[in-house]
């Protein structure tokens, strides 16, 4: 298993490098002069200052050298300074990453809580009324545009019923109750698509496993139905589920972008959108890199979990 993990990490490296190249170069494709953007209108009108900035940024050097320079700085933690408010980007990430992680984490939790039991029950009683309803709901969940769902939630619970606060973020350290209350609708919105996908995946892979030959063997051994399900079937059924989870991380972060925008949550996703809009290119570079790394790490974790669960790999 160790070799498996090692192989996976090794495979990740060239991908990570490619991702950094993509992050770096997208900015140079964005229209706008970087020096002008960093200085802002006022300072840039003075020729001397403008030229000095261009020289400082090394915009006259060939692109590959600029890339390596940027890569080196990034590795050392110097991600530059935001052109909008002159805050060091690394600081901005430190402030916003936990917020997005909390949102994604809660969404994941909600999704698991909803989808796993639903998927298991559906698989145990395929074709029953429960199964049909659950499947339909899951199906709908995938088709539902999550921002529409979010808007409807806001209208229902915040505008019409006034039960929940509509927006904003309250740090957990300041007021845990408000924090969770405000995260409820966003987490639901974000977790919706995920729970639908997970539910269907759980159901179908559990169904498949339950019909496998080795299950008959297990039952023949005399284990009770419950033990059979929990002990053997689930473990094997979870393999594709875990894989799907890893694949869905990208979608989760993408969904966070819209969810954070609708609910005014100061996380990484919304920062990414705003910085693309504002041509704040140090931030765009940094955030896209962080998100890519996050997705890669999530996939790696999924692969490792996979290695633990799948006996074929576990015992290699």
């Amino acid at each position, binding site marked *: 298993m160790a070799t498996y993990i090692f192989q996976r990490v090794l495979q990740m490296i060239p991908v990570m490098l490619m991702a950094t190249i993509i992050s770096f170069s997208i900015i140079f494709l964005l*229209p706008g002069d970087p020096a002008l953007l960093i200085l802002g209108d006022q300072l840039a009108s003075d020729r001397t200052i403008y030229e000095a900035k261009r020289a400082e940024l090394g915009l006259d050097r060939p692109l590959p050298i600029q890339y390596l320079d940027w890569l080196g700085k990034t590795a050392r933690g110097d991600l530059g300074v935001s052109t909008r408010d002159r805050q060091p980007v690394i600081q901005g990430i430190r402030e916003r990453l936990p917020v997005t992680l909390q949102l994604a984490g809660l969404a994941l939790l909600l999704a698991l809580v909803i989808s796993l039991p639903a998927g298991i029950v559906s698989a145990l009683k395929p074709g029953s009324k429960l199964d049909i309803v659950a499947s339909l709901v899951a*199906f709908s969940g995938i088709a539902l545009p999550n921002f529409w769902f979010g*808007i*409807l939630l806001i*209208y229902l619970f915040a505008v019409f019923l006034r039960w929940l606060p509509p927006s904003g973020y309250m740090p957990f350290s300041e007021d845990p109750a408000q924090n969770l209350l405000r995260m409820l609708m966003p987490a639901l919105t974000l977790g919706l698509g995920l729970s639908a996908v997970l539910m269907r995946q759980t159901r179908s892979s559990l169904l498949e496993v339950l019909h496998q030959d080795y299950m008959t063997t297990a039952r023949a051994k005399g284990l009770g139905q419950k033990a059979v399900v929990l002990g053997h079937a689930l473990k094997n059924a979870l393999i594709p589920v875990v894989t799907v989870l890893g694949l869905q991380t990208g979608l989760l972060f993408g969904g966070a972008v819209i969810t954070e925008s609708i609910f005014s949550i100061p996380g990484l996703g919304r920062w*990414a959108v705003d910085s693309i*809009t504002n041509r704040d290119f140090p931030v765009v570079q940094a955030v896209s890199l962080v998100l890519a790394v996050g997705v890669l790490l999530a996939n790696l974790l999924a692969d490792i979990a996979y290695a633990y669960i799948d006996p074929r790999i576990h015992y290699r």
Partner: protein
Amino acid sequence: MATTTLGQAATRTARQPRPASLEIMRRVLRVRLAPLAFGILAAFILMALSANLIQRYDPITDQSYSEANEGPSPAHWLGTDYLGRDLWSRLVHGSRISLTVGLISVGVGLGFGVLIGVTAGFVGGKTDAILMRVTEAVWTFPALMLALAITSVLGRGLFNSMLAIGIVGIPFFARLARASTLTARELDYVLAARALGANTPRILARHILPNIAAPLIVQASLGLGTAIITEASLSFLGVGVQAPTPSWGLELRTGYQYLELNPAVAVFPGLFIFLTVLAFNFLGDALRTALDPRLARRGGD
């Protein structure tokens, strides 16, 4: 969803003589609720084709400021927007945009994805490694973010967002095409053909492509739904279709802004998107059931 199932499906269908399309259709329609999905899709396609006939007002130029922000009424079935334009007429024209976006972006994604995936799977070796690493690297960026970045490079608007969504979908189809190609490549008669000295284009066209078609078609139909939602997301964020062109996503954005004044505008566009995507997903699922004999035997998901 796991690649193994689809790969096996490709193998299975390859061993049997290819079922006639009619046979597939029959199998699709046997799946529970598939006829309903078909019906919904047909309705939307009809709507898109006959938009000019079933609109009640011109969706762009019929502005009526005194009737702005009204809910459903006999004069305006779904209500009006902030400039007094008829929502029904706008949504009807929006169906054209959504369906076009779906088709073109999936077309782009599928086309380039198959090109890359089949090349990687068939040629193998270094080419495969490089192509796959690049594909994976693009894959790691959250789709929406990538689409956003691409539209900010290309500029806003309908065409560019179609391109962006298409580009974002390439890795997905590429991986799928590659996996299926890998399996198809090892089939008996393919190996035989190569041994006999058949040239590559012939092998690709006559043996590989038909065998990988099944899973690709399934994913393409699911991809249509995703593309529509992504377009709506881009329009919602303001970088997709631009006013005054009506698009479902753009109307949702308006609905969000005027939520308290006129909630109807928030409900209907989302409903249309939801139903269309639902129908595409149902269809894709039914296709998958129909094309995989194993699942067909079990009576479908």
